[in-house]
């Protein structure tokens, strides 16, 4: 499934770029992120927990940054699985930063997620709706982080 979106941040493009690479900040912005650890300078190991009603999943996944073009573009690819064996997924995500002005940046992201397993057969529509919600929460958290960073 394709998850896309865009939003604008009032900050210089370099600041936004730097923020995206701060692992601790990213971890704090992703709801349910239990850990994000760098394995090398392009690869990260992560565990994210998500709950939809009575169903809880803990995804363990590896993400590799395949294209890094500072400060405008990054592509990430990865695969992961639910620790409870309810499903596995692969993803390819691209994030583009476009400078609107000296102090404002548009961030657009496009994530192609392929989900296989019980979560996919039963949960396709739930996952899709939840993914949209999670995407919105991440962007909201990122925006708040940047706002408080710029304010201070």
């Amino acid at each position: 499934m394709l998850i896309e979106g865009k939003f604008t941040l009032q900050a210089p493009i370099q600041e936004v770029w730097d923020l995206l690479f701060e692992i601790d900040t990213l971890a704090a912005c992703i709801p349910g992120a239990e850990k994000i650890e760098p394995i090398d300078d392009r690869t990260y190991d992560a565990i994210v927990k998500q709950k939809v009603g009575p169903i809880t999943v803990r995804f363990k996944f590896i993400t590799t940054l395949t294209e890094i073009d500072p400060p405008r573009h990054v592509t990430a690819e990865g695969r992961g699985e639910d620790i409870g064996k309810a499903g596995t997924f692969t993803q390819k995500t691209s994030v583009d930063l476009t400078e609107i002005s000296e102090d404002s940046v548009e961030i657009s992201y496009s994530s192609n997620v392929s989900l296989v397993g019980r979560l996919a057969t039963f949960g396709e529509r739930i996952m899709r709706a939840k993914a949209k919600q999670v995407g919105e929460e991440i962007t909201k958290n990122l925006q708040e982080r940047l706002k408080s960073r710029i304010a201070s």
Partner: protein
Amino acid sequence: MIRDFEYFSPKTLKEALTLLDKYQDECKVIAGGQSLLILMRQRLVMPEYLIDIKGISELNYIKSDAKEGLRIGALTTHRAIEKSPAMKNGFSVLAEMEHRLASIQTRNWGTIGGNICHADPTGDPAPVLIALNATLSTASLKGKRNMALEDFCLDYFETALEPGELLTEIQVPAVPPHTGTAYAKFNIIESDMATVGVAVSITLGSGDGMCKDIRIVLGACASTPMRAKQAEEVLRGRKITDNLFKEAGQIASQEAEPISDISASEEYRRELVKVLVARVGKEALARANQA
């Protein structure tokens, strides 16, 4: 395959609540199992303790009073509601909704309480009950709570039910005079869940074609059943015309928050909302005129 669990079959509400209080998050409640068994068979939900409440006869009833309206026990099956003589006049929309809910087999086992507590946003009962201003009661060892059904559904598959709590009853107030309620859902296969569902209830001011009150509730358009309040404002307090229904449909389709999935795209769902709100609104008006 379903993972092994310890099984309890309480016969009274008190017994059930005691078990729930003891096992808290480690147990799941099962009634008709029409929603839970699907999850358990897929091993998406694997409770250690299963509390089967189907045998609690004190929660299985339909009571009807001319002034108070309906009181439906949480363990009443969909089929019982569908066939109940109490579902007449202003409540006939409940029997109609139940008639199109899933299949007879599911309706014979599934309960209204289980359906509401499962909180699937595509569910048929919730939009209709919300259009009818339904309230509900819950019980736990700590006591009872009452709330509007509209406030009970919080998110995908999440309700305001607290650990140790059971839904016990749904109340549907007596229908005010000159009120008509209708429901329609679009699906591709008969007996399938709603791609989009719309319930509308209209109350007319006496004899002048003025819309005294209106409730428009959308199903399968958001993470919970959704009141299309902006669309309601188009009609509330005004003399009803076909154009107003068209406008309400338009506004509701913008207000809705549907997603794209295997059944339909977001755009198609919005189009369905636009058409169904107008169509169901007109049906509700026709019923209000006859009431």
